[in-house]
Structure formats: C-alpha cells, structure tokens
C-alpha cells in the first residue's frame, strides 16, 4: 500500500525567509507522480508543484522548488522569499500508475509572520 508521511504538523517562518517542508512516501511502484498542494484559509486546494518520478531534475515553480530523492523516497518542498500569502496547510500527495488514486499526507500548517 502507498503511504505518505508529513512529520511536521506545524511550521512557521518569517516573511522573506526560506522554509522547507518535509515529506516521505512508501511505494513499490516505479512510475508515479508526486505533488504539493496548498490549502489556504479559503479551503480551496491549489496545486503548487508536481514531480514525475522518472525525471531526475527537481521541479521548480517560481519561489517553490522540490528536493526529490527517489532512493530515499523523500520529497521536500522549499519555499523561498516567503510571503504572507503563503500561509496555508500544505499537503504532499502521491499518485501511482497502478492504483491511480491520490494519496495524501496529513498536512503541514505553515504560518508566515511579518
């Protein structure tokens, strides 16, 4: 079975600083996608970034980047130049080619303070 673990229930960072959110996963599949979603107070789930497992290059989207370590089954999210609007719950998610459904971690609540 697939599992996704986020070991940091809460984190905080000062505006303009950098923060890294951790995620580990367990799977026997070789082809899969990993995602980070954010859920601000509005509760709308927003896709932040995705990583294809067969790509060695880490994905980057503006201030958001990932550190994907396939052998270690680790997928961390780095947010640079944090902004107040980054305050949200962040969910790590896995989707494999065999079972197809999305598996989510329990989330990390990130607070950005001035």
């Amino acid at each position: 079975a697939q599992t996704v673990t986020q070991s940091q229930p809460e984190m905080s960072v000062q505006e303009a600083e950098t923060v890294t959110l951790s995620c580990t996963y367990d799977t026997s599949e070789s082809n899969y996608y990993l995602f980070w979603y954010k859920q601000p107070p509005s509760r709308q789930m927003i896709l932040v970034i995705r990583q294809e497992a067969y790509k060695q290059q880490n994905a980057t989207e503006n201030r958001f980047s990932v550190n994907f370590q396939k052998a270690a089954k680790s997928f961390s999210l780095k947010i640079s130049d944090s902004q107040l609007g980054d305050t949200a719950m962040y969910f790590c998610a896995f989707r494999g080619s065999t079972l197809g459904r999305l598996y989510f971690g329990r989330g990390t609540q990130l607070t950005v303070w001035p």
Partner: protein
Amino acid sequence: EAGVTQSPTHLIKTRGQQVTLRCSPISGHTSVYWYQQALGLGLQFLLWYDEGEERNRGNFPPRFSGRQFPNYSSELNVNALELEDSALYLCASSLSGSYTEAFFGQGTRLTVV
C-alpha cells in the same frame, strides 16, 4: 476554461436525513474523486470514479455512495446522516488513464445538527 464546480457550497442537515452533493469536472476530465475533510483533519479518501465506473472506495460505511453520469459529472450521496459527517467534502477531477495531477473544486461544507 471552467474549473471543477461543486454544489451546493454550504448546507445544513438534521441527523438522520439524506444529502446529495454534486460535482462537475473540468471539461475533458473523466476521473472524479471525492474526499472528506473534517475540521482539523487531513483528507480522507471516499470514492474514485473513472469513465462511469467506481474504481476504488475508501474505508467508509455503505451509507456513503455515489455515481458518475455519462457526462462525467458525479454525485455523492450520504444517507442516515450522523453528527460526525459534518465536514468539507472535496471533489477533484483528472484525466483518465494517466497519473497526472488532479484539480479540486471549492468544496461543499456540510453541517449536521
């Protein structure tokens, strides 16, 4: 292009009643997922429909059911509502036959009193 739309956005029901939630996927998407998010908790997987068929079901009692229509929209039905069913119900859609990202609707906030 319209995103995933859910209706209603909010509703209040009495314990024991039945409720139907609706979801329209992004055009071209044939997979629909339902998740329950109770306050302070993560996302609990409910159901996955793909091209009209139920593909997977989460660990929920049979009073949670749903279906997918020929136009790929979906309904989630909950019978005999209990207080603990109060939650945000999220619907997501994705392309079929691939394992790319899913896009979420704004959710339906269900309160059972």
